[in-house]
């Protein structure tokens, strides 16, 4: 198995596992995008059965799609390009299947909720806010985000100012010990890593920016998501650190163009990357899964179409946190949401067309 296959397989497994364990990642009072008054629902017999059926459906479904892909690749022996296309179609199939199953179980959970007695904790039209908390206490300072720039700028400086000093042949690939492939120096080969670095940093930057605030229209009340301010601060700091190590690996690539450096430098970065990834999951688990929601909880099921799309014309926010507590989604009642969706589609289609011509 070569490196590309390894990355594709790892991504495949990650997508499949995340789809399968989805209900075990959300807050305990939210099941398939349906909000309940407290986390007793997690221990409810019927809810357990719903989760179990979901687990079976997802495990068999994803295994089926995986087997189909493996059969196609081993029997038809397609070219490398066709394999990648088959893989991408497979990932799309996984996501569509996962979404369809989620919607089906969302409907089952709605039925379960309707069959239960009305929970006194659930309030449908009331939102509470603690006004004594200042922005300083609840929102991480924007100054932290400046940490995105020093290494990024350093990489640009090394690439652009160092270009004349780079040898005619520059490293194209490293194995664990030394360079195992070389390429001819050109602006495109030297700047390509910068493009990847800038896009990755920009995505993380936007993630941090969006994580800074969480509107109460999603949280419901100060205790529906306990210590959520701290959770968001930790997450942002972890994302900033992750970004610093990511940028460092690109800086090493550009320095490697100038003068040979040991691949060990980049390899060692995997250690903090792994530690940070584990830390992100740990903090997520500690704050979202372990903390118990208290007090009135906003029942805004009606504003979440199929439990996953937020549609609330009364809410001016364009981006809002997912009700599960992690990630963001668009408010599809705002025109900007549709502009962004169309923009992304145009970008993806455009880049595919551009790469094939």
């Amino acid at each position, binding site marked *: 198995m070569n490196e590309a296959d390894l990355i594709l397989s790892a991504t495949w497994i990650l997508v499949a596992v995340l789809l399968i364990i989805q209900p075990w990642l959300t807050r305990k009072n939210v099941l398939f995008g349906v909000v309940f008054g407290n986390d007793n629902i997690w221990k409810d017999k019927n809810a357990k059965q719903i989760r179990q059926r979901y687990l079976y459906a997802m495990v068999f479904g994803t295994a089926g799609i995986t087997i189909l892909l493996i059969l196609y690749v081993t029997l038809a022996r397609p070219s490398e390009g066709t394999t990648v296309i088959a893989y991408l179609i497979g990932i799309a199939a996984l996501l569509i299947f996962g979404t369809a199953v989620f919607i089906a179980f969302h409907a089952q959970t709605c039925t379960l909720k309707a069959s239960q007695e009305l929970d006194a904790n659930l309030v449908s039209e009331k939102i*509470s806010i*603690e*006004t004594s908390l*200042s922005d300083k206490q609840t929102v991480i300072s924007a100054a932290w985000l400046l940490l995105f720039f020093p290494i990024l700028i350093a990489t640009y400086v090394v690439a652009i100012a160092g270009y004349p000093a780079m040898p005619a042949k520059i490293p194209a690939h490293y194995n664990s010990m030394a360079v195992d492939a070389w390429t001819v120096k050109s602006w495109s080969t030297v700047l390509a890593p910068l493009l990847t670095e800038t896009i990755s940093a920009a995505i993380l930057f936007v993630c941090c920016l969006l994580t800074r605030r969480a509107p109460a229209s999603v949280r419901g009340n100060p205790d529906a998501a306990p210590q959520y301010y701290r959770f968001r601060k930790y997450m942002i700091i972890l994302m900033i650190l992750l970004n610093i190590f990511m940028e460092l690996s690109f800086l090493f690539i550009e320095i490697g163009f100038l003068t040979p450096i040991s691949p060990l430098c980049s390899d060692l970065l995997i250690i903090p990357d792994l530690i940070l990834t584990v830390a992100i999951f740990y903090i997520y688990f500690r704050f979202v899964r372990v903390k118990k929601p208290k007090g009135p909880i906003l029942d805004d099921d009606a504003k979440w179409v199929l439990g996953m799309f937020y549609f609330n014309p009364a809410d001016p*926010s364009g981006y809002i946190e997912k009700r599960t507590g992690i990630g963001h989604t668009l408010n599809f009642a705002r025109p900007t949401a549709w502009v962004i969706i169309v923009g992304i589609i145009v970008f993806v289609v455009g880049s595919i067309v551009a790469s094939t011509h």
Partner: protein
Amino acid sequence: MLLTINFASDEPIYMQIRNAVVTGIATGVLHDGDTLPSVRTLGAEIGVNLHTVNKAYKLLQSEGFIEILRNHGTVVHAGDAAKNAAQFLENVGESLHAVVSEAITRGVDRSVIHKMIDNVYDEIGGKIS
């Protein structure tokens, strides 16, 4: 202070914000110098238009319950005068509500009530000054 907004209520949201602050001052939950969230923060938190929050804050400012300082945000003004006024508004709210309800059921136009209040103010105010 815990500010609760009821979207199902007939009362406009800006009035709910205003009333919550007035009640907070009257009941001693809000103290002199306490800060309130900025218009932007509160709007984003509740999920309402910034103009709605601005309207509430402007009203509170004109009534003397808060001060909007350029660099220090929105500060509660709960001095004795403000506290008295807040307490009065709190106490009189229900009886005023009853008077207006009766006026509506009896078909008395709001301009007549306005005029009546003006007259009483003139009459008593004239005597005091």
